C-alpha cells in the first residue's frame, strides 16, 4: 500500500508515523522548510519538501503511480480541495481523504465532489452536544455515502414517546430506532421495547427527517 500525505503538521506527521510503523510506504509533503527538516530527521526519504498543490511536486511524490490513498491534511481548505481534485480527477487515485479545517467549507467540499472528508471541529462539536443532551437531537454520526445519519435524543416524562412501545410510535418515514439506553445499559430497540422517561434513544434516519423524528419522540 502506497500513501501520499500532503501536509506535515500534527495531523499529517502522526498519520505518517503510524503508517510507517505498520510497514506502509509513505511520502509526506511539507512546504515549510523548518517543519520539513523535522520530518526529514524522523522519516528520512519519506519526507519531501514542496507545495503539494503544485502538480510537479505531486508527480515527484509519485502521484502518477498512482498511490492507493492520498490524504490532503494541510491547514488550508482551498489547498486540500485542489490536492484532492488533482489526485482523483487528474491521476485516478482511488481514494482521497481531505481534512476540513473550517466546518463552513464542508459544503464546498461536497459541491466539488470531495466526499470523503474529516472535520475535527465538527466532530468535537458533536461530542460537546452529546454531553448536553437537553439540546434536543444530537447528531452522532454522519454516513455520507449512505446518505444516512445516526442521532440521539433524550426522552422526558412529558415526551410523547414516554411509556410507548416502539411498534406503537408514529415515526417519520425513513427513520428507525436503533437502541435505547437506560441507567447506562443499552438495548437494541425492537417493536416490543417500551420507552421510559430518561431513556437515551439512538435512531438512524435520512437527513431531513430530524424535526419530524424529534417531534415524534420528545415533542
Amino acid at each position, binding site marked *: 500500500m502506497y500513501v501520499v500525505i500532503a501536509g506535515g503538521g500534527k495531523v499529517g506527521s502522526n498519520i505518517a508515523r503510524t503508517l510507517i510503523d505498520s510497514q506502509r510506504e509513505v511520502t509526506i509533503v511539507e512546504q515549510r522548510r523548518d517543519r520539513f527538516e523535522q520530518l526529514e530527521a524522523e522519516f528520512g526519504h519519506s519526507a519531501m519538501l514542496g507545495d503539494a498543490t503544485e502538480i*510537479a511536486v505531486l508527480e515527484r511524490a509519485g502521484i502518477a503511480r498512482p498511490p492507493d490513498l492520498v490524504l490532503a491534511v494541510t491547514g488550508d481548505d482551498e489547498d486540500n480541495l485542489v490536492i484532492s481534485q*488533482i489526485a482523483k480527477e*487528474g491521476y485516478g487515485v482511488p481514494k482521497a481523504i481531505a481534512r476540513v479545517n473550517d466546518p463552513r467549507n464542508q459544503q464546498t467540499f461536497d459541491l*466539488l465532489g470531495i466526499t470523503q472528508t474529516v472535520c475535527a471541529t465538527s466532530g468535537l462539536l458533536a461530542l460537546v452536544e452529546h454531553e448536553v443532551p437537553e439540546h434536543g437531537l444530537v447528531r452522532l454520526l454522519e454516513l455520507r455515502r449512505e446518505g444516512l445519519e445516526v442521532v440521539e435524543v433524550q426522552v422526558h416524562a412529558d415526551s410523547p414517546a414516554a411509556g410507548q412501545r416502539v411498534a406503537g410510535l408514529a415515526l417519520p418515514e425513513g427513520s428507525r430506532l436503533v437502541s435505547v439506553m437506560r441507567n447506562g445499559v443499552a438495548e437494541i430497540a425492537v417493536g416490543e421495547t417500551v420507552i421510559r422517561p430518561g431513556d437515551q434513544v439512538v435512531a438512524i434516519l435520512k437527513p431531513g427527517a430530524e424535526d419530524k423524528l424529534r417531534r415524534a419522540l420528545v415533542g
Partner: protein
Amino acid sequence: MKAVIIGCGRVGSAVAKQLAGEGWDVTCVDEDENALTRLGAWKGGFVVGHGMDKDILEEAGAVDANAAVVATDGDNSNIVIGQILQRRYSIECVVVRILDPARAEFYEKLGLRTVCPTQTAISTLTEAVRACETGIVRQVTG
C-alpha cells in the same frame, strides 16, 4: 448585465472599471476594505469579505450574475471560488486567473475558463527573443 469580481487588486480593479465603463453592473469583493481606493470614483458595488464565504458571494449578487472574474492573489482560492460560482450559482461566464501554468492547464481541462498571465509572459518573452534572433541573423547575413 451583472458581473462580480472576486479580488480587487491591480487586475480585478482594472477589469471592474473597464466593465463598469462599458455599462455593466459590477460588484467587487475583497478581504481588504482599502482595495476600494483602487476603483477611484466607484458607483458599483463593493463587499468586504472572503470569496469562499457563501453569504459574501450572495451579498455580491452571485445568484443572478451573468459573469464572474476571479483574481485574488491565491491560485487555489481562485480555483475553488471559480468552481463554486460555476457550479452552485450556475454562472455561465466564469473566468479565473491562475498564475501556475500547470494548474491552469489542468483546470482548463476540467472545464474552468482559466487565464494564466505566467504562460502569456513566457510565450511573449520567448517570441520577443525569437524576433530579436531573426533580426540579428538578418544583420549578420544581410
